[in-house]
């Protein structure tokens, strides 16, 4: 299970992930915002963007 996860994550770590991550974050929040309106949506958006930045940097840490 761990290996499968690593392969998936390695694939999305590529440089394109820097762009796809924030776009995916916005798409998710947009879908949630269509069905519900809560003050936590902003927190969710920031958390998803932070996660995408963290994931894109994780490879750099592993690689060194």
């Amino acid at each position, binding site marked *: 299970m761990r290996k499968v996860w690593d392969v998936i994550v390695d694939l999305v770590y590529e440089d394109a992930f*820097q*762009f796809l991550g*924030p*776009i995916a974050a*916005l798409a998710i*929040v*947009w879908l949630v*915002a*269509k069905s519900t*309106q809560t*003050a936590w*949506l*902003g927190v969710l*958006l*920031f958390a998803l*963007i*932070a996660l*995408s*930045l*963290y994931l*894109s*940097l994780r490879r*750099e*840490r592993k690689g*060194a």
Partner: protein
Amino acid sequence: MNVVVVLAVFAASGVEFVEALTIFLAARSVGGWRPAIWGTVVALVALAALVAAFGYAILALFPIGIFRALVGLILLLFGLKWLRKAVLRSSGRKAMHDEALIYEREVRQLRQASSQSTDSLAFATAFNGVLLEGIEVIFIVLTLGANAGMLQSAILGAAIAFVVVAVAGVLLRTPLSRVPENTLKWIVGVMLSAFGTFWAGEGIGVHWWQQDVSIIVLIVLFALMSLALRRWLEPRTQQKAA
């Protein structure tokens, strides 16, 4: 002349002008004055053309939500790119990688390409920021001015706000030039990411807590997050020495 309308538009458009100034200064610190000023001038010309062409109809015709989302996304992508680079450099990861892998000639070419890309980045950032904030100011002036039947007062309020913020920008120029380059680029990354997140969020229907105040919260959050990431990326020997 209605003083209440003047003050209301001054306050509301002042917030937008401060946001535009922040983006302009960020663009300037990345690519210098020239591309930042060109981006601003082209945006102002586009705004003038929009107002001349549509007048009041701009309120109904312009999909401000979609525009916010698009501009926000562009700034967010630029901002995260700069923030990522700044985190990698300050943690020591970026320099190690470059020195080991790139030949001198390639480095020179990369520098040239990098200089061109920072020019277009600065231009696009200033253009997007000024255009979006300018449209928001137009919305404020037209809605407040039209609702009160006091368009002249509304225009005066916006004009005073513009002058006050522009003077503040000129005064801020010298202190900003003393900030080290890498720190400035980190600040730019934080700022663009925060503004981009805020605008993109607004565009897709997020109702931010206390509206524009959330930008300050986002700036603090992005700054703290990048500092934590930098710490996390530092080689362990460096962490122990610290």
